[in-house]
């Protein structure tokens, strides 16, 4: 209350009364507004669909008992059928409810044309509205979708020298507009990917081909300059409808701006793309022309929910039926809320990539130090504590593939042995000569290494934990983190990984999954001023380089497996890569969604069988 100087008591009291009146009126207004707001919310919240009661006039035939007077001696009761209009109150039965599944999508796709996007959240949608020549099951094994069978040497689909692959298309495959899918669509797809006017995200593996030919409407022939063992893993992850995109290319000289890239209304999956509202949702409905029948769920609705905590709330509240990659700390909350977390291997593993190039610290270049680090990390404790036991520490980058088939049986896992690590360092001249807790090498340089990663929270947690573990054996690890676009920038951009500013780099990666091929450690990939795009941030080991090159041209699967096993053994012994946890796809499945299974390559390959149960 403001007391005004010079005001008489009477004036003051009158003013006080008036102020109270005004205050009360404001309070009253405020209260009314609050009540109105609450009422509106309650009404809106309660306004869910109940069966609608309507009054309608219907004409129907009824059986009615009437008394009829006839010119007879007596009155008789007779049953006759009469048609009359009756007014009756009926409860309108709503049309059969559409089964709608809502998927919470934490990242919005950038393109619906797979050649313009490498985003996981975009590429996995292909099995909903589009089709691959072959897909992969829950064991990540290939099975044909557009083909009659997967080409192989046994069935004559792959030539003896491995340079020609012949694919036979099914007779019944059609685009969702009814146009047949033919070999010309495959040839057109190849031409568009390789066309320099199209800014596709990757030309791999099509740049390994010397040509693609349609020998007839149902036969596609791929020709390689050299045998290419990894063809099955990455070819034909989609086909473009020539009849839709060719006119665009002819008019514009490029398909970069084709409407189909963002609104693929013609597809070849069990569902048709309907609409995409930027930032909000994407909707798919059943494709009536799908050659394999009709799915159980009528509509799929992708809701873009960028925040992990919101995704968790939406799944528990039942506002979403499917989510992806929950924060590990939310898994118990989700499970308590009746939501299932399913794990599917997708070939990825989180690991430490060691830099042993000339610019790396001497310690990082020394295999003894790297081996001591492998022994000093309690990787199972990291998995059980940081990742709640949902994952395990892999020994090699090839562990998640084909049930570990490519991992050398000679590998002895690095077990947690800090005393052994200390002894190994001592034996090789790394001692703490100045008693500061950090060892020095023979030249008196402290054993300090730098560790860099992206800003993902779990990685930063891991940095803090492992820093302590290495400190216990006398290694000083300096930790840093960057945004992904800075960390993975090129040599020319000054990226810390490319320039070799860090000794240990951490991220999650895979081979050319489900194929075991990899190119990171090729000596030709070392970045430099002359070749700033190089992806080998680690170093050149000529023996390893030879093995990687050898396996890619091998046609005999068994012989190739042996070479890959030698790669895994050599990399494990030299600790070029140290697995921290396997990084499977994690799916969050709400209670309404049933009959769900996933693949690590084509997660929605069984979406036809998924169902909604209320």
């Amino acid at each position, binding site marked *: 209350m403001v007391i005004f100087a010079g005001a008489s008591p009477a004036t003051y009291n009158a003013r006080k009364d008036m102020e109270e009146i005004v205050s009360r009126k404001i309070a009253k207004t405020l209260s009314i507004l609050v009540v109105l707001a609450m009422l509106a919310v309650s009404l809106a919240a309660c306004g869910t669909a109940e069966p609608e009661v309507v009054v309608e006039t219907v004409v129907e035939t009824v059986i009615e008992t009437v008394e009829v007077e006839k010119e007879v001696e007596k009155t008789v009761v007779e049953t006759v059928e009469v048609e009359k209009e009756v007014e009756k109150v009926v409860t309108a039965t709503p049309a059969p409810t559409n089964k709608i599944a809502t998927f919470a999508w934490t990242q919005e796709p950038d393109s619906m044309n797979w050649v313009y996007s490498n985003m996981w959240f975009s590429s996995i949608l292909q099995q909903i509205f589009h089709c691959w020549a072959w897909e992969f099951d829950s064991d990540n094994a290939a099975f044909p979708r557009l083909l009659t069978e997967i080409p192989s040497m046994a069935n004559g689909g792959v030539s003896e020298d491995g340079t020609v692959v012949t694919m036979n298309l099914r007779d019944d495959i059609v685009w969702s507009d009814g146009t047949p899918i033919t070999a010309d669509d495959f040839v057109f797809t190849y031409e568009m990917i390789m066309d*320099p006017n199209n800014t596709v995200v990757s030309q791999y593996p099509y740049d390994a081909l010397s040509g693609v030919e349609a020998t007839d409407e149902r036969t596609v022939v791929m020709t390689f300059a050299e045998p290419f063992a990894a063809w099955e893993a990455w070819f034909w992850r989609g086909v473009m409808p020539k009849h839709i995109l060719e006119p665009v290319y002819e008019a514009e000289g490029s398909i970069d701006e084709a409407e189909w890239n963002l609104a693929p209304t013609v597809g070849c999956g069990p569902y048709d793309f309907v609409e995409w509202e930027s930032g909000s949702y994407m909707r798919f409905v059943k494709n009536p022309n799908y050659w394999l029948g009709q799915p159980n769920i009528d509509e799929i609705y992708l809701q873009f929910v960028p925040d992990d905590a*919101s995704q968790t*709330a939406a799944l528990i509240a039942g506002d979403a039926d499917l989510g992806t990659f929950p924060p590990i700390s939310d898994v118990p909350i989700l499970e308590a809320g009746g939501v299932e977390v399913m794990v599917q291997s997708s070939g990825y593993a989180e690991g430490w990539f060691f830099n042993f190039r000339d610019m790396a610290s001497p310690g990082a270049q020394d295999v003894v130090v790297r081996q001591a680090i492998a022994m000093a990390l309690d990787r199972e404790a990291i998995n059980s504590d940081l990742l709640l036991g949902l994952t395990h520490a892999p020994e090699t980058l090839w562990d998640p593939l084909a049930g570990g088939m490519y991992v050398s049986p000679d590998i002895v896992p690095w077990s947690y042995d800090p005393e052994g690590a200390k002894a190994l360092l001592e034996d090789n001249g790394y001692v703490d000569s100045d008693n500061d807790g950090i060892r020095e090498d023979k030249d008196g340089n402290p054993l300090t290494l730098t560790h860099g990663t992206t800003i993902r929270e779990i990685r930063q947690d891991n940095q803090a934990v492992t820093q302590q573990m290495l400190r216990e054996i006398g290694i000083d690890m300096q930790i840093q983190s960057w945004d992904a676009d800075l960390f993975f920038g090129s040599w020319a951009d000054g990226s810390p990984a490319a320039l070799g500013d860090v000794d240990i780099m951490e991220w999650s990666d895979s081979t050319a999954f489900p194929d075991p091929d990899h190119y990171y450690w090729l000596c030709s990939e070392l970045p430099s001023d002359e070749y700033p795009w190089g992806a080998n941030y680690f170093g050149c080991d000529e023996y390893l380089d030879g093995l990687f090159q050898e396996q890619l041209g091998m046609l005999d699967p068994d012989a190739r497996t042996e070479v890959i096993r030698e790669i895994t053994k050599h990399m494990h012994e030299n600790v070029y890569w140290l697995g921290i946890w396997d990084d499977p796809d994690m799916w969050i499945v709400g209670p309404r969604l049933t009959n769900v299974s996933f693949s690590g390559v084509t997660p929605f390959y069984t979406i036809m069988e998924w169902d909604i149960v209320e």
Partner: protein
Amino acid sequence: MSRYVIRRLLQAIPLLFIISLVLFVLMRASGDPVATMGGRRVMRPEDRQRLARQLGLDKPIYTQYLYWLIGNDWATIDTDGDGEPDMPGDRRGVLRGELGKSLVSRGKEAWDIIWERLPNTLLLMIPAEIVIILFSLIVGIFSALRQYTLADNVITAISFIGYSMPIFFVALISMYLFSVKFKEWGLPFLPTVGMFDPKLGKTPSQVALHMVLPIFSMASISIAGYSRYVRSQMLETISQDYIRTARAKGLSERAVISGHALKNASLPLVTIIGLDIPLLLGGAIVTETIFAWPGMGRLFVDHVSRGDTPVVMGILMIIALAVVIFQLLTDILYAWLDPRIRYE
């Protein structure tokens, strides 16, 4: 006045030019757009090299800025990397009304991407701003007229708590309480995320329902701050001589408060609101992210993290232009509200 307006508009031209230059350099220095195009795997070197060339990212930064500003339809581009320019450029540049094409949604005009989100942002932000101003005035005036009473002290305490809360905390707590827990307890509940429930369709009532929690979160933070401001302005105003004069000449208290005190107390508020309005175009990053509202804030975050210069520059320049215009309008409104102010 008209000379003043013209002078301010002319001053804005070099200002916007400098802003655009600084933002462009910062944007391009903050990461490589091609680096994140590899998805979960590191981008293949051959593809990285090819895309940088095709998208013009291998050019010096001043050339890229020039292309962004005036376009490149006067130049030819080497798309196949053979060292020979083979294709004419097709960009017209900002000065000719084209913000450029998105690097993320390849081929789509940046303006089209922004325009898709702008209505959603305004749909959320304008009602939020109205609620904030309305409730700030009510709470602030109510509190000022009851200075140091129990009600004032309670409001003051609540205001400080609200003002100290980070918005993500209020948003997540309100979502957990009004959506998850209310549903669990069998009470009328609010939706968690999005603009509508797909099972019920995008109806006005659905959109309104989905606006409740985002607006509540934003308003609860902002009202706390604004109402303190209104309160202190009102306290200062009602102690002025002209208020005493107004009362002395027999005006009703309502007329004194609404006609004299509020009008004068609201003058500084006009400046704050004038500065707030252009920022509404930028959306509310945290609120939109948590409630999955498809507005400009999320658009900005999504595209800045992937180095999409055309879209990010478009958003920033629209906001910069709006700030210039609304500051000018605020100054004009100020002169209209306070006849003592003259612009020469």
